[in-house]
């Protein structure tokens, strides 16, 4: 494969930036909701669960369209964000990250939730008798023990963010140098006759990035898993 073109480099950088931000954005609410779904019983739990899964069930284009309606600059939320924090999502890579975070959210939540559910609650009880309040129990026992699932969820979210374009392109469109990810570029090439070679190049790049991210995450997860399950 010849060396990468500047446009390809730009798309790679943007993709990584968007995927990283998407994962970071999805993480705190993802962990919180996973924990609630794993441990609490409350009225409307199924509804919350359903809501979390929506981005998986709806065509991505619809998700993107709903984001446009709810977070666009004319929407209450969008104008609040813009006026109060100066955060504009439309046509920005940050908006793309939000779209990817939403799309990856169900994957993150499920993985984290499975890990929370597998934790022996008696360990949390032991922590309680040792004086740990809710906060400390969560951060010293529950969260570290759920780490393998949380890492797995982050990997899924990151990978999805690399591959996602339907919601992204609908929400923030495709602006080279700002929102054009590798995926969007690949998609574009698939729409052009006889551009298979360029598309294939980018697909290979996407695969390489994903493999690197996976190997790194495997390594992290192995360490975390070894700790969580107590062998080393």
């Amino acid at each position: 494969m010849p060396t990468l073109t500047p446009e390809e480099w730009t798309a790679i950088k943007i993709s990584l930036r968007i995927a990283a931000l998407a994962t970071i954005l999805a993480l705190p609410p993802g962990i919180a909701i996973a924990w609630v779904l794993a441990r609490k019983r409350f009225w409307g739990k199924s509804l919350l669960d359903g809501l979390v899964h929506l981005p998986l069930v709806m065509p991505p284009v619809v998700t993107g369209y709903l984001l446009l309606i709810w977070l666009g600059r004319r929407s209450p939320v969008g104008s609040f964000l813009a006026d109060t924090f100066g955060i504009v999502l439309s046509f920005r890579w940050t908006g793309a990250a939000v779209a990817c975070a939403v799309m990856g959210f169900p994957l993150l939540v499920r993985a984290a939730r499975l890990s929370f559910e597998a934790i022996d609650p008696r360990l949390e009880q032991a922590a309680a008798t040792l004086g740990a309040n809710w906060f400390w129990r969560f951060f010293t026992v529950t969260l570290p023990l759920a780490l393998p699932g949380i890492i797995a969820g982050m990997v899924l979210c990151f990978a999805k963010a690399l591959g996602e374009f339907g919601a992204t392109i609908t929400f923030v469109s495709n602006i080279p140098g700002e929102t054009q990810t590798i995926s969007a570029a690949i998609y574009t090439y698939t729409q052009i006759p006889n551009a298979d070679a360029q598309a294939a190049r980018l697909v290979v790049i996407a695969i390489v990035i994903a493999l690197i991210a996976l190997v790194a995450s495997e390594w992290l997860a192995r360490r975390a898993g070894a700790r969580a399950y107590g062998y080393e």
Partner: protein
Amino acid sequence: PGAFAQEPTLTVFAAASMKNALDDINTAFTNETKIKVTASYAASSALMKQIEQGAPADVFASADLEWMDYGNQRKLVKSDTRVNLLGNRLVLIAPANSKTSSVTINKDTKFTELLGADGRLVTGDVRAVPVGKYAKAALEKLGLWAQVEPRMAMAENVRAALALVAREEAPLGIVYETDAKVEPKVKIVGAFPEGSHEPIVYPAAVTTQGKPDAAKYIQFLRSDAAKAIFEKYGFTWLNKPAA
């Protein structure tokens, strides 16, 4: 089974943007000929590649000349059945409540001023989506491309571009007239001059493996009955045999 049943049936692969009109036309065609029609609507690119891989399509109707040419080169469609069925016009749109009311599009048009400090000009992807390709060609011909290129935002299709203007995300967009006319939240503020771009054409043809009845279908597309339906949905009736 449905699509491949024994009764006489035609399978039409058509660009998604033609769905409304073709659904009506198919009903009319079936009433007249007793031949059932199954239509698969998707992106022209996907449909052509499927035909290349042996999809059971009898007719291909594209939103785009390029994918029809692709099929021609590979002998996937019968070139003698090809017809340039519909035309369209390229227009400049703005949100319905925009202060911009009328823009004359020529080589002196100041798009950067019209777009304001950070406004975007949305259209389809200028490499891949037909409306984007026409828009880029027109802007280049008018010598405006260098000015607007950094301000472009490229949507995945015309409808998405339209939505971005309708939601006031972008102050201006370039779309087909047919689409602009049916979206109440946008207004047409200018039209691209004739000759600033290649004619916008929706071609149709019988595929190489198409059943004999497919020719009847193409014939029907060119009939007055079809014309009325297409025009009802805002398309410009062209009906020119391909050059």
